[in-house]
């Protein structure tokens, strides 16, 4: 019903929006806001997958799309919100790298991602596809995800950083190959889902034991 061009355009716009939500995470300091932004990001990712499934006829991606929307955009955010409610920590106060510097560095990361991806794509002669613009963005999302883990100190932010990275990986997978084999996708979903459950429990326990979820205080292993 749509031609490839339109679908590619749609994917590009959605990917750009995902990158924007990532930046919004970096710019905010409320934990709840992180979780909501992550939900939106995952929902957009689900839409990308849906577009790929419908537009390019890759039906198995449909399952991945539905899983993304159900698990990442709904179940995980709800679970994390509950954890935040219980531990009664609302704001990130203490940063390793402050917000302004973080945003500037993230902008540099986007440029780096673009410069890394471009030669690969040119070598593969894929400049005519949506992938040309989506791959750099997905690499940027991955790197920003890791950057969030470095820049923030609250345990919940670490989880969000990890999940953002994973979203970046999924997005790049979609853009390069229109989806990895289903078994891989499902495996990753299961992995992430269990990881978040465990991490949620851990955060709760850490808070109970140390009265904080600032990972700075958990340094005993060194001695």
């Amino acid at each position, binding site marked *: 019903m749509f031609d490839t061009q339109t679908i590619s355009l749609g994917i590009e716009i959605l990917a750009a929006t995902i990158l924007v939500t990532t930046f919004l995470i970096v710019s905010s300091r409320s934990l709840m806001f992180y979780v909501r932004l992550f939900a939106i990001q995952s929902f957009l990712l689900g839409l990308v997958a849906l577009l790929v499934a419908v537009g390019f006829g890759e039906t198995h991606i449909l399952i991945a799309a539905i899983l993304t929307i159900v698990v990442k955009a709904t179940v995980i955010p709800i679970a994390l919100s509950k954890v935040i409610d219980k531990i009664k920590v609302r704001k990130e106060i203490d940063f390793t790298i402050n917000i302004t510097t973080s945003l500037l560095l993230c902008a540099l990361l986007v440029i780096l991602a673009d410069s890394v991806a471009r030669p690969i794509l040119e070598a593969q002669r894929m400049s005519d596809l949506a992938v040309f613009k989506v791959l750099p963005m997905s690499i940027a999302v991955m790197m920003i995800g890791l950057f969030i*883990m*470095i820049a923030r100190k609250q345990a919940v932010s*670490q989880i969000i950083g990890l999940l953002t990275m994973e979203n970046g990986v999924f997005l790049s997978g979609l853009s390069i190959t229109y989806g990895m084999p289903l078994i891989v996708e499902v495996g990753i979903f299961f992995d992430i889902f269990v990881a978040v459950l465990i991490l949620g429990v851990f955060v709760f326990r850490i808070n109970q034991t140390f009265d904080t979820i600032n*990972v*700075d205080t958990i*340094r005993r292993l*060194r001695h």
Partner: protein
Amino acid sequence: MGYSLALPGFYFALLIGGFSFGAVVSLFFVRSNNANELTSQFVIRLGKNLGFGFSTLASLGGCALSLSVLLAGSPYQLEFGRTLPFGPLSINIDQLAAFFLAVISFLGIAVSIYSFGYTNEFVGRRNIAVFVFLYNVFLLSMALVVMAGNAILFLIVWEVMSVTTYFLIIYEHEDSSSRKAGILYIVMTHIGTALLLVMFITLAGFAHSFSFEAFRHVRTQIPPSVNTWIFLCALVGFGMKAGIVPLHIWLPEAHPAAPSNVSALMSGVMIKMGIYGMVRVFFDFLAPGPEWWGILVLFIAVASAVLGVLYALMEHDLKRLLAFHSIENIGIILMGIGAALLFSSFGSKTLAAVALLAGLYHVLNHAMFKGLLFLGAGSVVHATHTRNIDELGGLAKKLPWTMFFFLIGSAAISALPPLNGFISEWLTFQALLLGFDIPDLAVRLAVPVTVALLALTGALAAACFVKAFGVTFLGLPRSAHAEKAHESSFSMLFAMGILALACVAFGIAPGIMISLISRVTSSFFGESGSALSVLNVGTLTIPRGAGSGVSPLMLLSLLAGLIIAPIVVGFVLAGKIRTRTAMIWAGGLEKVEPRMQYTAAGFSKPIRMIFSNIFRATHEIEISEEMSAFYKPQIRYELKTESIFQKYLYAPVRQTTIAAAKIVRRIQTGHIQSYLAYIFITLILLLLFAR
């Protein structure tokens, strides 16, 4: 030849199977808690005896295997594990391997028999099943080290040997000094193994294979600088295990810490694995090198021999004393090997063969008499529960057989004719003196210095064993321990008897063993290497040297004559010998007390004075203050010798390592963010620069 084709396989299976079975079988007889004390002890004893029975059997198999290879002249080969990533592993028992296997197996038989009686003491007190397991694995790994025909297999069994030795050293783990000795040993031995790994990888880089056969094929293609690198790696890596000065510091700690039967094996054969490795690399994998190789080895040999015996003289711990003597004897063995290297770099194959033969014969002899001495020391410790010889004395009456065997061992290690130590040291002298044939200044300087210091070593060793034997066995008991001593069990005495017999046999009839060992040397230096023409069983002659032949039997009769003649003459001149019974003069006191005897420290004082620069002895005399005419004041005398190596070599290295570790430790912040940042920065740098 027919027999030699069929039987080695059987002996090989007996060797491997026996040790493996012996290792596993005792584990099935671990204590059964529910049974009563007597039956559980019986079960443990049964398991232990089965284990040592299998190890004796396997050692017999090893002896037969090595003899069949030595006599048949063709190596026994086996290949397995073709699917492994490094290529197939192989067993290759050539002449050299067979010789070392013979040494291991022969001592293995004696020590296994000894262990039947010796380990009875552990029953009920320690986990003996684990001991039997480790003991068998230890022997098996040593046998496999010499049989390995492939670097990968070699390194695996080499490490198995190191690790089992570590566990045997810390077998009495409640003693903190044992644990310390174990740590020191395992650190040192792993540094050595790291160097061996480097060496084998360098060799494999040229040979494109890890098999020893391939190494041999490329021996002439390796450039000289790489050759030197391999030589140094082998010297230090194997030297660590052999205990050459200055890498010897683990040896006097580790040998006394282990149970005595294990000390006998460690000192008798394990340190020889270092020698095996050196001979294998120097003469098999490397082409003859520059002459400074031989000079360097000779220098290390002399340092080991002289310092080893000097430190031994200062020891009052019987087993530590023996451990220092192991360093000394490794030095003597290395003199032969160093001389062989030196001569072969001048292309003189006959001389090199004689020198190597001297070294290898001393390997065998040292295994015999040092094994015997450690077993004897084990019997003494078993009987008295102390290793300090100043607490012993008068044991000759309590342990007559042990005394007799220990005396034979002492005479052998002091190189007295007609025992085996004399023959191999004589050969070493001859080999070194033959070096005058080579018209080179360095050789002409090195040879006489080495000869002189070897002579010094022999004299000091004799002095040391006069002290060790005299203070331990003669005189009056110095403590209650020594008074309550009892003779060891039959199996222990039997084992010592075997070794004592070997010491005598290899001394009186050296021709038999030498004709076997010359097969080893001729496998390296060709037929011209069989330089020693053995005229008959009794007399050895060396072709070059004018009149350099020796007949142990003749020497023996000469010595006996020297002792008997004065007695006869005295008898003839003075008529019948009068005897007078009286009290021993005790300096005017009522009777002779044990405390009046010469102590070990007193005996060795003259030597301590002469070599005071090396020992740097400090003594402290403390007299308690309550001086009164009626009460004897308490006098405390403390004597300390310090090791120059500990102070000037190991302490700085240790401090630098710790300081460096402290600096590196700073990157371990404990912040999860910084670890992530390390990963992230690495990733970005790779993306930027490593495209």
